[in-house]
């Protein structure tokens, strides 16, 4: 066996890197469903010890999915920057964890990004407790720009998510107004459309653009339709700020989403050609999507999730978020598993250089509730999460799941001394929105949004 470690007289062997990574992964239902999880707590810690001793250089010689078989693997290895890797090239995985905790600072972490592969980062996360995931991520600073600046130190942004079950423009407008009154929307105002077609998408884009222009809001819009729909909308001359796409960490997962790297490049270039802003992509990810698409190649769900971040960073996105609790209990069973996965995803995304947000969320068949969401969002706030979602009353009436509310972001900013993006904060002050919503007045006239 290439990798092995003995615990209490029992020798545990691991035939290859992907098996070692899977067995070292803290417990979660998706890896158990896939038959990849460690069979015992002792086997898991044996794998973690073997992983800790593995030189980082090994990740450049053994791919978890073959180079020839997967364009995401090719992207990862072709983009690896040996010069940026130099400061940690002599380290093991365990040594990298220690270095990240003890030595690394914001500047050295920024310089290191192109030298790290997703698998190195995922491996390191498997050796980390929650406090390590938080402490290391908090040192990372990732700043992106469109109409405002996201990710500056001391800021916490929100995506205003005004979904409507039938894309009713009045329902969407009412939720937007409610969110703005409660200080939400600096990351973007982003709608998941109920119907993914170009007509509906263009109508929603016009609505969002109208709101942003009418009130002079320093933020950006997004309709989270399929990338091919957004391309059609661009061709029609619709006001597209951000192009959205769900992405995964294997070529086959992306095929199941109807995308590939070339298509993402085409969409990125089309959006940039509009010259509306600098960072033009918005990606969503989530552990378990590869297994769900039967496209995981025997790799654990957290490692594949980190590989999706290599896809994301290729296109310099404005925003990336893991929709961590959306996929259901067969992948992340309860609040404990969702919490750990959310912090892992944020940690891996930030180390790889992404403006990482998290949709702190759950479905009604998961063993989770509002207390779990309060805990996770607070931990993520301490870790410096770039943004969270803002949904009216935490209840998404279109997607039928529970995320974070406008109120949650107000709580989190107050509890941790965080502020919105500076341009957006100035706008909130200029409009007097915080004072108004406390006093119960309405400086944004609903009639201006067609709500009479």
């Amino acid at each position, binding site marked *: 066996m290439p990798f092995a470690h003995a615990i209490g007289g029992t020798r545990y062997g691991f035939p290859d890197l992907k098996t070692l990574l899977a067995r070292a992964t803290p417990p979660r239902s998706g890896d158990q469903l896939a038959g990849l999880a460690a069979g015992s707590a002792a086997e898991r810690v044996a794998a973690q010890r073997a992983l800790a001793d593995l030189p980082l250089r090994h990740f450049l010689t053994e791919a978890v999915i073959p180079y020839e078989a997967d364009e995401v693997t090719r992207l990862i290895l072709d983009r690896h920057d040996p010069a940026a890797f130099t400061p940690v090239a002599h380290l093991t995985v365990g040594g990298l964890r220690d270095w990240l905790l003890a030595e690394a600072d914001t500047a050295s972490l920024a310089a290191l990004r192109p030298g790290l592969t997703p698998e190195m980062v995922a491996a390191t996360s498997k050796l980390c407790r929650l406090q390590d995931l938080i402490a290391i991520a908090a040192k990372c600073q990732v700043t992106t720009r469109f109409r405002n600046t996201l990710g500056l130190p001391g800021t916490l942004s929100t995506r205003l998510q005004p979904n409507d079950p039938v894309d009713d423009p009045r*329902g969407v407008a009412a939720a937007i*107004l*409610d969110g703005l009154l409660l200080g939400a929307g600096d990351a973007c105002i982003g709608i998941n459309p109920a119907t993914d077609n170009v007509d509906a998408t263009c109508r929603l884009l016009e609505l969002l653009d109208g709101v942003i222009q009418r009130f002079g809001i320093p933020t950006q819009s997004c309709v989270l339709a399929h990338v091919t729909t957004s391309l059609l909308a661009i061709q029609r001359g619709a006001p597209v700020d951000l192009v959205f796409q769900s992405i995964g960490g294997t070529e086959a997962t992306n095929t199941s989403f109807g995308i590939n790297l070339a298509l993402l490049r085409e969409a990125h270039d089309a959006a940039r050609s509009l010259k509306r802003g600098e960072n033009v992509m918005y990606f969503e990810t989530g552990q378990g999507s590869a297994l769900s698409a039967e496209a995981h190649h025997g790799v654990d769900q957290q490692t594949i999730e980190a590989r999706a971040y290599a896809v994301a960073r290729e296109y310099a996105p404005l925003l990336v978020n893991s929709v961590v609790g959306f996929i259901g209990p067969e992948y992340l069973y309860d609040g404990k598993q969702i919490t750990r996965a959310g912090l892992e995803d944020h940690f891996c995304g930030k180390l790889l250089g992404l403006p990482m947000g998290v949709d702190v969320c759950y479905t*009604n*068949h998961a063993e989770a509730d509002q207390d779990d969401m309060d805990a996770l969002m607070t931990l993520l706030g301490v870790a410096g999460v770039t943004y969270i979602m803002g949904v009216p009353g935490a*209840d998404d009436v279109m997607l039928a799941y529970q995320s974070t509310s406008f*109120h949650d972001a107000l709580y989190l900013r107050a509890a941790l001394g965080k502020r919105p993006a500076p341009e957006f904060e100035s706008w909130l002050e200029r409009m007097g929105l915080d004072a108004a919503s406390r006093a*119960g007045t309405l400086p944004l006239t609903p009639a201006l949004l067609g*709500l009479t």
Partner: protein
Amino acid sequence: MSDVPALWRDLRRHTTARVALGRAGNGLPTAAHLDFQEAHARARDAVWSALDLDRLEADCAPLGLPVHRVASQAEDRRNYLLRPDLGRRLREADATRLARSPTPGAFLIVVADGLCAEGVQANASALLAALVPLLNAQRMAPGPIVLAQQARVALGDEIGEAMQAAMVAVLIGERPGLSATDSMGIYLTWGPRRGRRDAERNCLSNIRPGGLTPAEAAAKLAWLMQAAMARGGSGVALKDEAPTLGLLA
């Protein structure tokens, strides 16, 4: 402040979303907080609800159709939630028993708990009472009925294969949301056999009082079943004709 001013409260006229909840500092006012907790509690209880098979069988008795009871390999709700693969497989004894009473060419009805037994308990018998006369009028006499516990949609494939059915309609409880905990879906599959993919099914969802009523759903299902028989297939092929369904609503 917890009194939401009229102008803000008026936003509620435009949406079912939880807008204009007011503020208690940065938090939710108590009433809005407890409204949410109540909705979530109901949804949680609905997920963990169980089918009352005796009542369901009694409700279906007037239809005069043979009824079988089966269960998936998921032995309890926790196992069901963790192992969707087991929820798609019949217990061996049930598979053997069904295979011993085949109904070649039958239009099989499976009533399954899915993620919300309450949803199917509340709507299945009303739907069947409306559906059976429609199918009889189309000379597509349905049955038998199979009641399935800890079942995923694809369990209908193995049930239909074991009984040699021509097609299977799976009536199944839908994942409860905060606003609806009594919703049922229907998945129609032509030529059921293990390994069928979701693209080979047609789906009707949100069947409940206040959504698609059982009578409306029965009319749509009867049309779909006739179309599936005419084409010898279900799924994406049938979907192309879906606009026709609007006329039946």
